[in-house]
């Protein structure tokens, strides 16, 4: 019997119990749409948090003194760069480099009358385009100027939690380059809000020259922070900047923690995918089994007419195939629609969530989905495949009924 006629039988059989067919179709569609939404959101979160981390925290590349250790934020001159102007000029001269600027980091304690917070100090080149994202996210007061001698910039979230505002004075305490405790009084010039709570809560900015004076590391910097026009040029630029006494670190090694967390998150996500696909498979198997049980005598009649086991099996697999294919198509439509919505409007996860996640993810308070076409296609194919797999048992059951038993039922 030609496949096209079996196809017609299968198609009409689906119309017999229209409500059941439609419900099954919808559960397949919804299941797949859910998978696509999750995949889109996860792709978005991962890419956004990586990009946030690159833009605000690590840059694409950093030039550091060979002995610099990131977790110590040492202020000793052997761990710092001396010829900062030279290195910055060299980096900026490269075509692939969007911006390069020296930065000085130190651990500081910020004190108000009633409260204190442990922060990371950033001594920055206020004129560099690297800090444009900070400049545009200033929500109160103003950004810093290079010659500001006592101005600092802190995150709005931090300011709110310490109950301070722009214009107010605060105390900063450090252990300086000579290992001596030191402190100074500064004025909060402005508040910024990047939308990344983990960053907004723990950073304090001041002009590089003031930071150098405050920490006692005249002329030195912790690193040259470099952003590229195209992330793909990272290795090329790294090679070009290599030199004696310095090490070049790339975004991938600086974000290895984040990337590890991403991979760990992925395995959890694969589990979720598996659960959703399993549920879809159970629904399909159940629908098909019910269809088989309702039609046992008909299987006997078809067998009496000379239909072979293989053809009966094909007929049920075709039924599953039609349900699966239609379900997957509808699922893709809903899935892409949802991703389009989530990519533009996003989901607000709130400050607290973002801050908690911020230990490993540089998350914004709103997360956006992204189109990950390869992933979506893989999920759709996997769903279709599992549906056909789930249909095998009912189809085999129908095919292997004994004609006499089927007819007697």
């Amino acid at each position, binding site marked *: *019997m*030609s496949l096209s*006629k079996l196809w017609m*039988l299968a198609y*009409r*059989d689906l*119309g*017999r119990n229209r409500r059941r067919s439609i419900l099954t179709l919808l559960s397949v569609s919804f299941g797949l749409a859910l998978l696509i939404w999750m995949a889109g959101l996860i792709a978005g979160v991962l890419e956004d948090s990586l990009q946030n981390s690159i833009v605000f925290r690590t840059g694409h590349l950093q030039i550091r003194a060979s002995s610099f250790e990131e977790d110590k934020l040492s202020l000793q001159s052997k761990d710092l760069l001396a010829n900062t102007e030279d290195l910055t000029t060299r980096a900026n001269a490269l075509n692939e480099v969007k911006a390069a600027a020296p930065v000085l980091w130190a651990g500081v304690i910020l004190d108000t009358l009633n409260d204190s917070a442990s922060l990371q100090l950033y001594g920055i080149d206020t004129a560099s385009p690297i800090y444009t994202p900070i400049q545009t996210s200033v929500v109160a007061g103003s950004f810093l100027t290079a010659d500001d001698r006592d101005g600092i910039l802190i995150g709005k979230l931090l300011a709110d939690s310490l109950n301070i505002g722009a214009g107010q004075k605060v105390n900063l305490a450090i252990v300086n380059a000579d290992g001596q405790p030191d402190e100074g009084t500064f004025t909060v010039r402005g508040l910024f809000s990047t939308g990344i709570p983990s960053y907004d809560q723990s950073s304090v900015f001041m002009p590089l020259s003031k930071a150098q004076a405050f920490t006692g590391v005249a002329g030195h910097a912790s690193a040259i922070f470099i952003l590229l026009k195209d992330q793909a040029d990272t290795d090329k630029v790294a090679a070009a900047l290599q030199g004696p006494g310095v090490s070049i670190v790339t975004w991938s090694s600086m974000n290895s923690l984040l990337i590890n967390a991403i991979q760990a998150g992925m395995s959890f996500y694969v589990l979720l995918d598996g659960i959703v696909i399993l549920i879809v498979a159970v629904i399909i198997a159940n629908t098909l089994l019910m269809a088989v049980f309702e039609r046992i*005598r*008909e299987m006997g*009649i*078809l*067998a*009496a*007419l*000379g*239909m*072979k*086991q*293989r*053809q009966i099996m094909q007929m049920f697999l075709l039924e599953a195939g039609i349900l699966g294919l239609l379900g997957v198509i509808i699922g893709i439509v809903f899935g892409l629609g949802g991703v389009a919505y989530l990519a533009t409007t996003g989901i607000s996860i709130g400050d607290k969530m973002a801050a908690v996640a911020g230990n490993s993810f540089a998350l914004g308070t709103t997360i956006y989905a992204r189109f990950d076409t390869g992933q979506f296609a893989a999920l759709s194919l996997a769903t279709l495949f599992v549906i056909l797999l789930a249909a095998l048992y009912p189809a085999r059951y129908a095919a292997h009924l*004994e*004609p*006499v038993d089927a*007819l007697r039922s």
Partner: protein
Amino acid sequence: MDAIQLENVTKVYHVGEVETHALNDVSLNIGEGEFTALVGPSGSGKTTLLQLIGCLDKPDKGAVKIKGQDVTRLNANQRADLRRESIGFIFQFFALVPVLTAYENVELPLLLGSVNAKERRERVMELLKAVGLSDRARHRPDQMSGGQQQRVAIARALAPRPLLVLADEPTANLDTDNGKQAMEIMQRLNEKTGTAFVFATHDPRVVAFARRVVKLRDGRIDSNGATG
């Protein structure tokens, strides 16, 4: 040559400890073009016999030969082929495929075979005409009366031009007039096409149509009404 030969056929059903000898050492020949009634009390083995002749089931002992070929040795696929080509079935319940029209139901066994489209069309229309349902070709089973459905089933059984049509109480669910009409149609088609018919029945009015009557009792042939 006889169309069908049953040689010392025994069929035993086991239900728990209980053994039922549904057929006990039955031998029977059915010639080509016969029009034979199979009678006997309930439980005498009529349905079992038809199932064995129709290659739907295998005997525990003995041989079933169709045109001289022992079918008990065939595998499931080969038996399906044999049923499709050589045997038509008519059941007591009107065994049509509910999602197919009258036309499509009659066409179905031809689709399972390899009859070309033109030939299919001609045969289906001719058979629907022969059973008086040309105007019902596009009706689904649930849009037809029981009598009409059984006539579609008769047309379907004859579509592959089988050697033999087996009918298990074909009139049991029909009223007198419809039963008579169905029997007349089968008789006419038997004469016209030369296809043999064997029908199991309790109804004396149906038996009256038969040219030969085989009587079963307790799984044995009581009288085989052989004509020669």
